[in-house]
């Protein structure tokens, strides 16, 4: 496929679906089978429902999957590798970076960053996943030949530093001033799946560590250190109103649709026991298997209308499913798609059995 032009610092070697480059001046160039531009300094690589693989001059590879945005800030190649430099900012989505086998640039001069951390590499292969509010998930991948660690990456920000050294070790970073989570080794994946990795929601191991460390976001748990007890005023709280229930159809984020769902969760066979723990009992609704609002795991938006005493389950992946029912009803909604299976239970789940199969 495309080769680097005279001014380029790399080329696009694979492309599928909707992908483009935005030049520094704002010009957007669509990447297609017949038009494969070279990579230039200050380019922004953007994918919609598509992917691309960028290879830089020193053979570094940057694999970008759907709905991802990457800034290529700098790539300078000097005859003296110690003076060469590369800087890439991963802004949103999921990308896999494989450091080059060339000799044009010292690995210590490769600077990678996410909105919440900086990553120093020592001959490595890893993925980053960044959500819409900048939280990052970084996983060190194995060497494809040996299966052992591909090297070492050092993740640092204002909150601290964490080093990943073993294959499949992972860390999440919720904000720039909070330390990256302690490394956790993920299980249930192998190199054959890495080339098709789609890590969008957090692996269960990461969630557990964050729970232990009190690092969950306000939607999950609040860190005890974040609580301002002086602001506590129980009498002002209206227990008839639940913030989760304010999620409405207007809040549906159609861009949050995960067409290629979390392989890690799939690999762990959807620990249904755990999944069912993600209930909405805290909001007064006997709902298991999903949450009120958008659930990135099931891809359902659950919208409660307390006035009408109804709940709507809306899902827009491989077809649109919208199911409304009374909150007082009981139902089991089983959904099987190409990627995964989920089960939502309202009440005791015995009243209505709804089986949904979606395939592309």
């Amino acid at each position: 496929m495309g080769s680097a032009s005279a001014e380029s610092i790399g080329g696009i070697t694979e492309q599928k679906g909707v992908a483009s480059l935005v030049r520094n001046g704002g010009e957007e160039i669509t990447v297609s089978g017949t038009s494969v531009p070279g990579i230039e300094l200050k380019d922004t690589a953007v994918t919609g429902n598509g992917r691309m693989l960028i290879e830089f001059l020193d053979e570094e590879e940057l694999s970008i999957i759907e709905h991802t945005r990457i800034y290529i800030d700098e790539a300078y190649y000097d005859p003296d590798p110690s003076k060469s430099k590369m800087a890439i900012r991963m802004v949103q989505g999921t990308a896999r970076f494989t450091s080059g086998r060339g000799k044009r640039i010292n690995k210590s001069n490769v600077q990678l960053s996410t909105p919440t951390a900086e990553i120093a590499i020592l001959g490595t292969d890893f993925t980053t996943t960044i959500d819409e509010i900048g939280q990052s998930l970084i996983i060190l991948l194995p060497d494809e030949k040996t299966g052992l660690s591909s090297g070492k990456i050092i993740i640092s920000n204002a909150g601290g530093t964490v080093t990943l050294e073993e294959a499949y070790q992972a860390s999440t970073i919720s904000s720039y001033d909070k330390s990256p989570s302690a490394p956790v080794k993920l299980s249930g994946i192998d190199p054959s799946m890495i080339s098709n990795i789609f890590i969008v929601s957090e692996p269960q191991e990461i969630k557990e560590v964050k729970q232990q460390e009190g690092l969950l976001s306000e939607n999950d748990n609040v860190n005890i250190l974040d609580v301002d007890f002086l602001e506590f005023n129980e009498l002002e709280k209206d227990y008839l109103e639940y913030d989760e229930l304010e999620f409405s159809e207007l809040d549906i984020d159609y861009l949050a649709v995960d067409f290629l769902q979390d392989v890690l969760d799939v690999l762990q066979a959807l620990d249904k026991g755990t999944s069912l723990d993600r209930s909405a009992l805290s909001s007064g609704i006997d709902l298991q298997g999903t949450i009120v609002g958008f659930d990135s795991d099931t891809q359902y938006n659950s919208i409660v209308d307390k006035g009408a005493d109804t709940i709507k389950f809306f899902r827009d992946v491989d077809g649109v499913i919208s199911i409304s029912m009374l909150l007082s009803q009981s139902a089991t909604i089983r959904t099987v798609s190409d990627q995964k299976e989920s089960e939502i239970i309202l009440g005791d789940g015995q009243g209505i059995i709804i089986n949904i199969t979606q395939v592309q």
Partner: protein
Amino acid sequence: MNMNKSYIFVMFGLISMSNAIAGDANDNEIFIEQTGNNVELTIQQIGAGNKYGGDNFSGTSIDMTMTVSDSYLDILLDGDYNKMFGTIATTGSTINNFITGDYNLWNQKIGVANTADTITIDSAITGSTNSVVFRAGNADDSYNVDTPLWNNTAAESFWTVSGSVWSRTATGQTAYWGSWTPTAGSADSLDMDLDVNGSDNTLNVFVNSTNATFDWDITGSDNWIQTTMEDGADNSQTVAVTGDYNFIFVGQNTGSTVGVTNNAILDATFTTTHSDINIIQSDAN
């Protein structure tokens, strides 16, 4: 009969209790063969045991055949044990089917050879124990009242989809159809509404058209409802079911164009208990 513009109003009134109890007598039979454009037709039969269809109606049916375009048809059956069989090849028409009564049999096909372009169909059934097979834009004659795609035994089992073939096999089940292969047609722009108010009704509705919208409301219990939509882009169903012990199967297959992802849209409201609801959405290409 061949005309450019027709106005027909036919009304039959007949009450025969004995025939109503017998349930399959030959009271009134209306057999229509109509060809033309801009036809405005209203047919109403009042009473029991009436039929729209052919002359061998006490046994197997012969469809009444209408080849009309840009027309307006009202077909009404008021009473019990009525039957309506018919094929209407049409484009650009509005068709209203209204059945009021119990134990009626409705087997109608609108749009033979996939010619159901730009059609609006508004149908309503008020009554119980009615049997319906309705095909819009679907030329497959193999579907009829006696051969539903599936029975509802052990319905909690998932369907499986392989390519464009949907199948559902499980121990203890008896399949009338082990699988179903959606077939792309060529009809376009279909707008259907179906309201059922009653219980113990059996409905099989097959839609084959691009840009098809199908809104159906069921109020009643113990109904057995199967709908399929195939072909085309962005087929949409809006469903409201109120009542208990209903079995519902909804199949939506889109994607007659290779490489193009077309959405199937299902917007359903269920107010029910003890119901078994199955939904399949697939994009064949």
